[in-house]
């Protein structure tokens, strides 16, 4: 890990995990939890202007209810310089134990550059699944949006699928237009009672980790 650095006033990114029973907390509720936790931590966070000032907390990717993650990213702005070590420590003291910040840094890459996300599926009937067979294109699923339901072939959005020792790894599209919720391939493969973890996120090459 990088040594203690002074974060200038301006944008800050934190990398954190959401584990254990925290996976039953929805994205909206996580935002509320974070909001009060930032107050407890006494972080000099920037608020939006206007009649109803708010903290601006921007999450890299949504995480569905029931999924754990060790690679969540969150952006916000600070109004005065602060040591990254102190910021991380203060947030960890204010967060519940299953929400842990690994590091904080000044972001260099925009979230728009996130292209792929790797998921691990374990437990249930996962060990019996051969993903090469089970995800042979086309993978047509019924996708629901707010307005309509339509059948889509999601195979272009599945870059890689392997199963080693009962750990099924899926590398799925995570860009803003074609974000693929891992529940779709999981349901297509008829997985049951599995646990889901987001492990890493990548740039467009699918190899370089996004930071």
């Amino acid at each position, binding site marked *: 890990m990088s040594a203690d650095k002074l974060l200038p006033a301006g944008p800050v990114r934190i990398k954190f995990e959401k584990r*254990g029973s925290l996976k*039953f907390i929805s994205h909206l509720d996580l935002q*509320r939890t974070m909001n009060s*936790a*930032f*107050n407890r931590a006494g972080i000099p966070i920037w608020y939006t202007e206007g009649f109803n000032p708010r903290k601006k907390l921007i999450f890299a990717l949504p995480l569905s209810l029931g999924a754990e993650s060790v690679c969540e990213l969150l952006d916000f702005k600070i109004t005065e310089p602060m040591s990254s070590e102190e910021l991380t420590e203060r947030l960890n003291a*204010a967060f519940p134990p*299953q929400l842990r910040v690994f590091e904080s840094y000044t972001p260099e890459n925009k979230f728009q550059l996130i292209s792929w996300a790797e998921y691990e599926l374990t*437990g249930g009937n996962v060990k019996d699944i051969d993903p090469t067979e089970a995800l042979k294109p086309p993978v047509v699923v019924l996708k629901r949006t707010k307005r309509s339901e339509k059948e889509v072939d999601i195979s272009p959005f599945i870059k890689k699928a392997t199963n080693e020792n009962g750990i099924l790894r899926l590398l799925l599209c995570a860009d803003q237009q074609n974000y693929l919720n891992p529940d779709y391939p999981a349901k297509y493969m008829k997985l049951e*009672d599995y646990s889901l973890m987001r492990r890493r996120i990548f740039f467009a090459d699918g190899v370089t980790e996004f930071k």
Partner: protein
Amino acid sequence: MIKINSTYNGYPEKILMSVSKPGRYTGGEFGQIIKDKSEVKARMAFAFPDSYEIGMCNLGIRILYGVLNEVPGFWCERAYTPWIDMQRQLRENNLVLRAHESGDELYKFDIVGFTLQYELCYTNVLSTLELGRIPLLAADRGEDDPIVIGGGPCAYNAEPLTDFFDCFSIGEGEDMLPEFARLYIKMKEDGSYTRVKFLRECAHIPGMYVPSLYDVGYDENGDFAYIRPKYPDVPAVVTKRIVDDMDKAYFPDKLVMPYIETVQDRIVLETYRGCIRGCRFCQAGMVFRPVREKSPETLDACARRLYAATGYEEMTLSSLSISDYSELRELTDRLLEWTDEKKVSLSLPSLRLDSFSEELMQKVSSVRNSGLTFAPEAGTQRLRDVINKNVTEEDLLRAAGTAFRNGKTGVKLYFMDGLPTETYEDLDGIAELANKVVDEYFRTPGRMKGKTPSVTVSVACFVPKPFTPFQWAAQDTYETLVAKQKYLSEKLKSRYIKFNWHDSKTSFIEAAFARGDRRLNRVLLRAYRLGCSFDAWDECFDFDKWLQAFSDSGVDPAYYANRELDPSKPLPWDVIDVGIKKEFFIREYEKAHMGKTTKSCAEACAGCGVNRLGGKNRWCPKYKEEGV
């Protein structure tokens, strides 16, 4: 590592993923109190008999959770009634309800407590017990089963629940419950504990009511006749406990932070207890007397600590009538010194409309905007005098005008129908008052341009409650209440007025239990067996099942709800003394029928008698013997 069949707080993941808002059951909240089981001598699960979202905000539990966990060797955890879908899952999969902190099953606890905030949560008490594998009937509990204790406002008449509880704490629990916890630990440690011996000892703790130690009798007409202790060492009357000095009373420095949104997800600062007003229908206004205030210094320090520990951006100044807090200006000034900067918004609920001012309004809406609610309660001055709600039409119009001038367009007005002596003229008065508020909007210079007013009229049904001057009054029959509501909805046709009314069916059941005696225990059990649950929720309340439960039990709900009681006869709740004398209630009941008002404690002492309970900084220095 491959995880198979993971459980969270003792519940399998598969089940959690199949129910709505699983975060209600998994615990692990920031601020929860975890103790080392090996160092704990007695454990309690403090249950709120409604959903997590409601229970998490209860101020009483927040206080008592903190105070009980200060008792050495004692660990108090939380529990809630699982929502319908989770109940079904637990039953179908043969699983047991668990407490939040340890994830242990309820039956494993030494003590299970329930706060009883409203009558319509009673069936949830039974489902919580049963899902926790605790025998429903106190008489069926063995040495290894938990002691089940109840408290809260409904414990003042606990008679309809006596079959299910081992004991009740009457009044404020800050001192009493730690005494109870210490007694439990002591008797367990010295080996003298048996269920029977412990409960007998409990009866010696002031404020503790052990219903199994009393005999109850009825006269030849089937009316309640007497309640008396079975043994000479058991008190004939249980006097409620109060906290002596509110500035020294325990108040939590931190809160358990729910992950999921709850109904009052904010800091609640208790400014004072009791009420100086004496509205004749209001139980809270009577049973929480004497009025005892906290100082602005205490409250400000407490607010700062709670903000640092919680990070909440909303703070409510809680009380029965916030404008009666004698140092409100001092308090809000102190708070605003730092809350604005921290973006914390203050809300002042229960504002009386006779004290609503421009200054107060600007303080309250300084960061966030919210609607305004006023409670004239009745439509005519005559009826407002009967109920002793000492506000006038001028007060209301002035307050509404102030609100409109300050950019508000919406006002909510709360009324009650079915009040004693009510006539259709009083209902006309509700409609007239609402129309005058609308007129006031158009008459107000500086109102919001290009907007129209929206006046919401909410009408609840009068429910006679024990320990109020109206405890003897009859509730209107269901048919009468429906007719009145229909009449009102015809009268309130303006497009600027929205009319809401409370379902009179639930009010009828509420009234029967509020004034119930021990014969209602079997009705409650029957209703539970028929499937009644979450009765305070419109989507769950099943009136027909309740009527069937009454009829199956041979009990007539109208006998309890719709009958005017005779003030000279004993009442089932006479075993409890709330400090206020029965003669005061009788006097107030008579004055109501004469249309005479009684001054607030700030103006004159009406001699209610509660002064004898003591209490520092109380509002009744001019106590008069027997209220001359």
